[in-house]
């Protein structure tokens, strides 16, 4: 079957164009998936988990200072690079110290040591108070018996008072 030469070339070119278009489309898609600018909400979701040492007691998402604005920009850049929240937080800890975290790292010791220390202190104090209070309680219990015992001086004094009446 005869096929015109012009048509064969056109088909070949068409195939090349389709392949090129596919390649471009795939490449463009890959790039756009990596680099969309993160929204303010996405940035603030990470920022509110951090505190800048310059502005104490103000979470990063609400802090109006220039230092905090720079930090938020850095978070935006890192999110655009595809870094995860944990990776970003880790970066901030490495660069600015663990105190930038709104919550301490999830270490058992962070919560256990203060609790154990408080309980231990309480137990020691409790035992101390218990020992300290025991003699006084015993004394209190024995005092009525002592007062009920007849004291000759008091008895004589009371007698003298009765006589005067």
């Amino acid at each position, binding site marked *: 079957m005869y096929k015109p030469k012009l048509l064969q070339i056109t088909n070949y070119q068409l195939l090349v164009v389709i392949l090129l278009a596919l390649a471009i489309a795939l490449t463009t898609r890959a790039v756009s998936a990596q680099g969309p600018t993160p929204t303010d909400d996405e940035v603030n979701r990470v920022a509110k988990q951090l505190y*800048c*040492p*310059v502005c104490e007691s103000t979470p990063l998402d609400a802090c109006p*200072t*220039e*230092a905090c*604005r*720079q*930090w938020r*920009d*850095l978070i935006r850049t890192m999110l655009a690079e595809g870094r995860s929240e944990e990776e970003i937080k880790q970066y901030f*800890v*490495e*660069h*600015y*110290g*663990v*105190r930038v975290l709104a919550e301490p790292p999830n270490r058992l010791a962070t919560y256990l040591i203060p609790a154990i*220390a*408080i*309980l231990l*202190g*309480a137990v020691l*104090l*409790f035992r101390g*108070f218990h020992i300290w209070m025991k003699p006084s*309680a*015993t004394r*209190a*219990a*024995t005092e009525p*018996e002592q007062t009920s015992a007849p004291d000759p001086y008091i008895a004589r004094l009371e007698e003298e008072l009765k006589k005067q009446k």
Partner: protein
Amino acid sequence: MTETSIPAPRRGVPLWAQIIVWVFLVGLLVIVALGLQRRQQGTVQPGQVIENFTLPLYSGYEVDGKSEIHFADLRGKVVVINVWASWCKPCEQEAADLQQAWAEYEPSGQVVFLGVDYVDTEPEARVYLKKFGITYPNGPDLATRITQYFRITGVPETYFVDQDGVLRYVKIGPFSSIDEIRAQIDPLLE
């Protein structure tokens, strides 16, 4: 005569609970007191020997090809430690004077300037360094270890350390002129 134990009447809050509350409150007060004491202490005081610290350097600011500088290696030289940040407007007032002073003292080899970049982002820091043409060694204060050691009260602050590693002068706030910087360095060189 026999001792009779009378059981104590039960009250609202048990003793152990009261003790825990008091221990907690006292602990809290101790923490607050320590924090206040630390704040009132201010910066490290002149006369104190400065302990060794390591400053990682920004690329382009390496010293003898090394990417970090150890303070202990600078014994025998006057060290000027300037704490700054790119977001700090008062720092800009003194940046040019510090660079000019560095240009004056660097050839002697007896004075070293160190820029400690506090709570900053590297891109902004680089813009700042370029803007003021700063060439002396500069790097970030990683995890704020250096500034915590010096107990800085803000930025800028500059510390002048003599050849024996003893802190001689602390400047809180920006220098008003290059003469103010010279006035601290020159006596240490005599």
